């Protein structure tokens, strides 16, 4: 409990320090506005609805790419798992996959699909899908053999075994993949909007930066930070429950 308290104190102290530095003028207003001003600005833009179209587009794209990468990653994972020779061939490639800076492919998607949601979703899925594939393989690998044998003794059909035994046993590992897919979709969508696009939160931040509209820029940054932190905290709570269930 005292650790939690200490952590809150550390975070609050850091925010207060930034606030103080901004108010005194050590950090000029052109560089950064005070945290309390960011909250005020965020309230203003949310109330005026100025960026609600951008916010909606970004979160829709994040949702689409998360769902797509989870589904595609899971199906691809199951297929790769059931074909051991394919798996042997692909595994060295999967190990190097995240070494590649995926965003260098964004310009290629732009020439293929044009500037817009399609290329943004494509890059986010490209970034997120492999973590789901790896998590699926990992989950299927770790199903205890005794569970499958029990299924055989009960003479369960293949589909019943999959739904009643294999899926629940692999769920904690699959959830790790879901968590990573959400995080990568956030990064993929917002970063692509930021680099080149015509709408979305990332675009709005880049636009505000170019116009020196620091109020809007920091308000939107704060919005992203708050949403990501909340989503992560929720996913971590679910994750902890699932891990506890596994240990029992």
């Amino acid at each position, binding site marked *: 409990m005292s650790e939690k308290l200490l952590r809150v104190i550390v975070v609050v102290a850091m925010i207060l320090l930034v606030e103080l530095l901004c108010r005194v003028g050590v950090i000029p207003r052109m560089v950064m506005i005070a945290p309390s001003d960011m909250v005020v600005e965020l309230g203003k833009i949310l109330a005026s609805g100025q960026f609600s179209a951008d916010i909606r587009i970004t979160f829709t794209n994040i949702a689409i790419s998360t769902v797509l990468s989870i589904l595609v990653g899971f199906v691809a994972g199951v297929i790769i798992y059931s074909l051991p020779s394919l798996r042997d061939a692909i595994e060295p490639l999967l190990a190097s996959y995240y070494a590649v*800076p995926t965003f260098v492919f964004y310009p290629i998607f732009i020439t293929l699909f044009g500037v817009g949601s399609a290329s943004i979703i494509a890059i986010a899925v490209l970034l997120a899908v492999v973590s789901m594939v790896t998590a699926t393989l990992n989950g299927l690998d770790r199903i205890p053999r005794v569970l499958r044998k029990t299924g055989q003794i009960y003479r369960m059909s293949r589909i019943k075994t999959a739904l009643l035994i294999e899926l629940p046993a692999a769920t904690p590992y699959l959830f790790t993949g879901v968590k990573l897919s959400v995080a990568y979709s956030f990064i993929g969508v917002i970063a692509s909007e930021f680099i080149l696009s015509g709408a979305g939160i990332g675009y709005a931040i880049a636009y505000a930066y170019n116009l020196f509209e620091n109020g809007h820029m920091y308000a939107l940054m704060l919005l992203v930070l708050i949403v990501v932190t909340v989503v992560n905290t929720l996913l971590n709570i679910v994750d902890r429950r699932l891990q506890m269930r596994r240990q029992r």
Partner: protein
Amino acid sequence: MPRSAGTLIVLLAIIGLWQGLHLLVGASSLASPVQTVSKLASLLATGEFWLNISETMRAFVAAFAISLFGGIALGIVLGVRKLAGNVAEPILTTLYSIPKVVLYPLVLLCFGLGISAKIAFGVMHGLIPITLFSMNAIRQMKPVYRRTSQVMRLTPSQNAFTVIMPAILPEIISCVRLGFSLTLLGVLIGEMFASQRGLGFLLTSAINIGQIDTIMAIALLLTVFAVTCNILMMRFDRRLTHR
């Protein structure tokens, strides 16, 4: 070697798919593998291209060095001091999971438009995972090492260099791998958003003038570079753990 033969077949299939897609959508949207390689060769023959490569590499090497030394030093401090580590860990994991691109304007406003902003952005990507990795490696170290160093009354720096560093060397190599790719990504995103030189800048300026073969040649170069470095580090890693 049937294993690597399978990988080779998959790679050939990817190249075949690429060629097929090129024939499907036309040369103006997707350059063929042969075109890409020949474009890359002609780019590599020009001095200007090497200037951009060296600009990117300078930013990357500086950012990687700072992330690596800073991250390992921070990780050792947080790993040895239990309370500080417990307090810092959730804060660091939250910072790690936020999309750092949204903070790039802040970096630009602090460091100006130039190589220092790119380095700072690369460090933002690489520092935290390296810190977290080395911290967790120390926490999972055998307790007997810690007790032995206490019995021998080693000074903190002796403890760090003669006990902790050798004990967590394999983990350090894996976090070098992770930090390598994340720092590279950070530097490139920084260049793609705002800069006047570097490979990322070449990519975005090639989109604006519609040079698809240049885009693909640079993407190919970076992919080959990243994958080669990763494979070399994995080899090194395996040799260390089998010692």
